[in-house]
């Protein structure tokens, strides 16, 4: 009889530490107009923002939950705390000023170390508020703005934010966009001026520490004409036995001939409902590059969307999703081609293991004006064992004759021959399988900066490592 590899559950201990929530202020559970008004007051919103929140709350109450994706029955909004202010008076620009337990958290996650080594700037959010934000001097001198969105709302860029806030992702978009509009807090604002090419990345790290809480950060990035930015986003949380919710919103404006690379390594704990919305609008000759690794959360709905509005605008989406025990991850991408000669390229891999459920979902729309546009989608799924599930649900809508649309999907397992071959070269079965899965996910790992690629490979290896039994 053939021996089976037993694969243990992922070791999340490096992310799964937590501190007592000594938060200074938290609103009560559930969602009412009073709570929204309290958040607004606490955050000292301008008036338009307070009205925006109330309007969004109304929409939230009207819009139904999606009837097509993974179940979110386990998520009861009456039990989610929407706003938790960490116990620190204001945002800091020096780690020494950040309270010890919070600083300790980020140190364990390696954020200050990475900042010193290889980042142009870092933002760190703990529960509902940014606790640290800093950019290197030379970056700031080039005119790059990287700050928390609340300060930006009151500063020099207030009008720009008012003009762009939740315009790409309006609160009417879906129930959780409406929720975000009502209770958003924290997140980053980035502005890269015309022609500025940032060689090293900026990073935001989101940490949700409080039990039963929600995180609703808003990220707004504007990359002006001809500029270049690589933005990295990391997320994690300790595991609690009650549901946590992440309903962030990312809005990206990519200007004429500008390029934005947006990389995410998401490793939320397995009690997290990750209902995140990310969207980019790309102008003429511009390019959005999404690099996305999804490893955590209990349930995910995540489909970064590219709206190609200018001639020759491009989008690339490279993603890997790893669904293990107890995870139902519905991920993919959406692309809308709205102009001539636009192109999109999608390359995703998904891995299902130990009863995990993976769904790749996509939508490519080629509008009637998108003459000469091209789209190529390729998705591959790997079933590691026989308890898991993997679905592929793509959709294409083409309304222009001279478009070139290609789609490829494959589903399969690790071939016994390959495992045998590797074992014949001296690898253990577990190592052989881990190697194969890492290779399978290399579409993403080779797009990431080295440290992140290493981290991702470690995540995969941890997930795959087990005892042969």
């Amino acid at each position: 009889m053939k021996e089976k590899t037993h694969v243990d559950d992922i070791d999340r201990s490096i992310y799964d530490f937590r501190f007592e929530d000594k938060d200074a202020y938290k609103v009560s559970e559930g969602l009412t107009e009073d709570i929204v008004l309290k958040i607004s007051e606490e955050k000292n919103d301008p008036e338009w923002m307070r009205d925006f929140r109330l309007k969004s709350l109304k929409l939230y109450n009207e819009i139904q939950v999606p009837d097509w994706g993974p179940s979110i029955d386990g998520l009861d909004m009456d039990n989610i705390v929407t706003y938790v202010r960490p116990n620190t008076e204001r945002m800091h620009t020096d780690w020494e000023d950040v309270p010890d337990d919070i600083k300790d958290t980020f140190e364990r996650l390696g954020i200050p170390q990475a900042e010193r080594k290889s980042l142009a700037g870092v933002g760190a959010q703990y529960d509902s508020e940014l606790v640290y934000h800093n950019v290197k001097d030379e970056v700031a001198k080039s005119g790059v703005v990287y700050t928390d969105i609340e300060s930006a709302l009151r500063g020099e860029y207030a009008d720009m934010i008012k003009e762009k806030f939740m315009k790409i992702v309006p609160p009417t978009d879906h129930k959780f966009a409406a929720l975000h509009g009502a209770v958003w807090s924290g997140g980053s604002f980035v502005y890269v001026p015309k022609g500025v090419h940032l060689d090293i990345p900026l990073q935001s790290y989101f940490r949700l520490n409080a039990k039963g809480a929600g995180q609703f950060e808003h990220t707004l990035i504007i990359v002006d004409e001809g500029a270049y930015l690589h933005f990295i986003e990391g997320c994690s949380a300790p595991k609690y036995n009650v549901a946590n919710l992440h309903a962030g919103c990312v809005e990206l404006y990519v200007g004429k001939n500008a390029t934005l690379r947006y990389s995410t390594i998401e490793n939320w704990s397995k009690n997290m409902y990750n209902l995140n919305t990310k969207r980019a609008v790309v102008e003429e000759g511009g390019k959005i590059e999404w690099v996305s690794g999804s490893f955590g959360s209990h349930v995910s709905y995540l489909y970064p969307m590219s709206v190609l509005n200018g001639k020759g605008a491009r989008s690339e989406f490279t993603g890997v999703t790893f669904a293990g025990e107890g995870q139902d991850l519905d991920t993919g991408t959406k692309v809308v081609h709205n102009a001539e000669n636009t192109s999109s390229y999608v390359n995703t891999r998904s891995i299902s293991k130990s009863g995990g459920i993976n769904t790749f979902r996509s939508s490519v729309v080629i509008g009637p004006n998108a003459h000469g546009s091209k789209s190529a989608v390729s998705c591959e799924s790997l079933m590691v064992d026989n308890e898991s599930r993997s679905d592929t649900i793509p959709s294409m809508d083409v309304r222009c004759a001279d478009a070139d649309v290609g789609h490829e999907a494959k589903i399969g397992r690790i071939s016994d021959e390959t495992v045998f071959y590797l074992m014949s070269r001296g690898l253990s079965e577990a190592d052989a399988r881990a190697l194969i899965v890492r290779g399978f996910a290399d579409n993403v790992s080779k797009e990431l900066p080295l440290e992140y690629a290493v981290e991702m490979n470690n995540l995969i290896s941890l997930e795959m490592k087990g005892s042969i039994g």
Partner: protein
Amino acid sequence: MKINRLPAPTWNRLKVNATEVNAVRPNKAAGYEEKLPEGVDKIHGRGIGPLSDVTIKTGLGEEFDKFIEDAGFKPEGYVVSDEEKIETPLYQTFDVKGNDASVALFDYSLSDNAELTVIQIVKDEDNESGVFFVQNKYRLSKGAKLTIVQIQTLSESKEFYNDIGGYVSDDASFNLIQIVLGAKNNYYGANACLAGKNSALNLAVAYSLKNDELLDMNYVADHNGKNSESDIKANGVMQGRANKLFRGTIDFHKGCAGSKGAELEDVLLIDDTIVNKTVPLILCDEEDVEGAHGATIGRPDESFLFYMGSRGIPREEAYELLKRAKIDAVANLIEDEKTKTYIAECLDRA
């Protein structure tokens, strides 16, 4: 009613999860000419065979099935007994006349290792706005092989509902070849429950849509048996304001180890006023399977048109050649020479 439901729904705003139709209730049994080959027993009512009790799921779906049942028409049953391999096809020609909502229901029951080919030609000679419903259900015992060929050339005022569903036992195979050349609104659905080990579905559809024609499809291969295989191909050409929605699903259920499924779509788009939607799903609840789908959508590249042009073949004629090629590729799967000639004649006339 809602028909052609996608087995796993997606974003509602894409409007592909199901199609809402307002069909008139069938009021008449469709007349047809038939050539019944020797060895096939025809009975009024459902086909009688070893699998009579098996419930059949169809492509257009439950609501449609109920709608047809409620109209109170009885199917014609065709039974082929053990080891009978019927060489001559069963020909059925439907001349859809007038404004009626006519219906034809068939029930095929093939016993162990029996073989049958059914050729259904759906046409009309008038321009009346009639509706035609046809439903074919099949139950295939071990090693049986059923081939259904359907050629539809209705005029552009007709509405056509074409519903198929069946059950495939060990080593049995169901082959479906559909050529869609007419009608204003086309609703096509086919479901194959690949229940037995080594059961197989081979499905090929070719369509040419023009003006305001609509083709709404839903094909499902339900893999349950070990080593079952499915192959779904759709070839088409779209012109004018034609509207097409292709749903194709390979569903690997738990226990179908060793199964393989492949889907391939190839669409040639000629005008900018078309609406072309494609939703090819692979659902997988089993580790040891291989599933693949591919789609190529668009206009042939300029180098093709240039090469054609350099030989004196203008753009329109080059498209015509390609269109013909796409339909021929499917028509060539038909073994019956007479039917192939019939298709060629229909295409020449068009």
